[in-house]
């Protein structure tokens, strides 16, 4: 009853899963607590794209960490398969960021040349070259950046896989257990209080995604994490009609195993409501049909919504609480949590083992918004992106 864990992870999404996996693999006695089922929130809703070059700009402090994280997937995929038999469905065929206007053609060619200069793989494909590989694409697509290294995984498989692998390494998982508050004592954390009783550890990491703000408020830390709802849908076809991910402004199509195509995504900030609106889905389908007309013949599968954890400046929070030793936070990965999960797991496990992490995480400090917050009005129009 009075067992003391080496570490407690709060939240069974991809971020909590990755940290639990790393800690358990290093021999720690880990407890992961999830208030619903594991992999039931954002981490099961995600499209699973590993879109570093398609989504992030090189000036973004996340860019090089994201590259490193992306490179960790092939090994991770094998480790998880060997450890617990779950296939994360890593597909490394690359992504097309497609241009549908002359302005996009120009913009993307510019991005492409700057990415090539810093050593990233990126090639321009003319419309003819593109249609050769993807014959069902609409001729509204004028050309594309081909990003060979931006792969994809199944987000729910990855999340489940990391948590199941952690269990093989000895981690304990409690589902339907809600952490109500943190147990704090003399400037340090000593455990958590849940609806199922108290659990003890001097190392606790909060990975509760969009729901992180409330839990940390009692510690005096006002993290600026807020919810951004996203809706997606999927269809299936008898024969493959798409071989690589199509990334466009306003819509993406991700070909999954078994001739499924996943189409995303809407953006609605400040809501935890996970209802799917027919209007959003009809807009998404319209966009998908414009890019890939043949998707009209596909069979409807399903639609769903997830809540992304966004932050005021768009960067995640990674680090230790400034006032409570042993209390760590890893959240705010917004639309890149799947991509960033491997590096986040390693960095947080390093911090929790009192080792210096291999990447610079100063941009992700928990107390950075103290300064950022001088003029809240100025940043308020960021909320919608």
């Amino acid at each position, binding site marked *: 009853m009075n067992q003391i864990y080496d570490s407690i992870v709060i939240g069974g999404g991809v971020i909590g899963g990755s940290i639990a996996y790393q800690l358990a693999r290093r021999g720690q006695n880990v407890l992961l607590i999830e208030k619903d089922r594991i992999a039931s929130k954002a981490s099961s809703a995600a499209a699973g794209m590993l*879109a570093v070059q398609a*989504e992030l700009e090189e000036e973004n402090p996340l860019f090089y960490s994201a590259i490193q994280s992306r490179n960790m997937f092939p090994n991770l995929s094998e480790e998880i398969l060997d450890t617990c038999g779950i296939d994360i469905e890593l597909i490394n065929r690359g992504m097309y960021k497609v241009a549908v206007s002359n302005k996009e053609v120009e913009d993307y060619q510019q991005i492409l040349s700057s990415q090539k200069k810093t050593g990233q793989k990126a090639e321009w494909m003319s419309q003819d070259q593109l249609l050769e590989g993807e014959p069902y694409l609409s001729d509204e697509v004028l050309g594309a950046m081909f990003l060979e290294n931006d792969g994809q995984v199944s987000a729910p498989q990855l999340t489940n896989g990391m948590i199941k692998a952690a269990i093989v390494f000895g981690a304990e998982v409690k589902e339907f257990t809600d952490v109500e508050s943190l147990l704090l004592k003399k400037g340090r954390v000593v455990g958590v209080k849940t609806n199922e009783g108290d659990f003890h550890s001097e190392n606790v990491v909060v990975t509760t995604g969009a729901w992180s703000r409330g839990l940390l408020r009692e510690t005096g830390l006002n993290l600026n994490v807020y919810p951004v709802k996203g809706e997606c849908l999927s269809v299936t076809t008898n024969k493959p009609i798409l071989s690589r991910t199509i990334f466009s402004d306003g819509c993406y199509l991700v070909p999954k195993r078994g001739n499924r195509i996943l189409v*995303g*995504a809407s953006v609605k900030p400040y*809501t935890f409501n996970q209802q799917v609106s027919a209007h959003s889905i009809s807009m998404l389908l319209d966009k998908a049909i414009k890019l890939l007309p043949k998707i009209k013949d596909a069979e409807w599968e399903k639609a769903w919504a997830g809540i992304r954890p966004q932050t005021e400046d768009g960067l995640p929070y990674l680090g230790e609480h400034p006032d409570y030793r042993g209390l760590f936070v890893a959240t705010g990965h917004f639309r890149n949590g799947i991509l960033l999960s491997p590096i986040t797991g390693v960095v947080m496990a390093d911090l929790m083992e009192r080792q210096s992490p291999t990447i610079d995480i100063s941009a992700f400090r928990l107390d950075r918004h103290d300064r950022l917050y001088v003029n809240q009005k100025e940043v308020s*129009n960021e*909320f919608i992106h």
Partner: protein
Amino acid sequence: MNLFINGQSVELSDSIKTVGSLLNYYGLGDKVVIVELNATILEKDTHQETAISDGDKLELVHFVGGG
């Protein structure tokens, strides 16, 4: 002017007078956006001229080519 956007109270400059100018302010001017004004969904071609005023409730949904 004070608006409620997706349930959040937002203080905006009075120079924003229409749904069109609000979308421009958020950088969504040339994007597909579903706009609901005081519980009514607006037709897309009316965004430019539809006036907004203090206390209005708006729901905005847009679409992204990213996770």
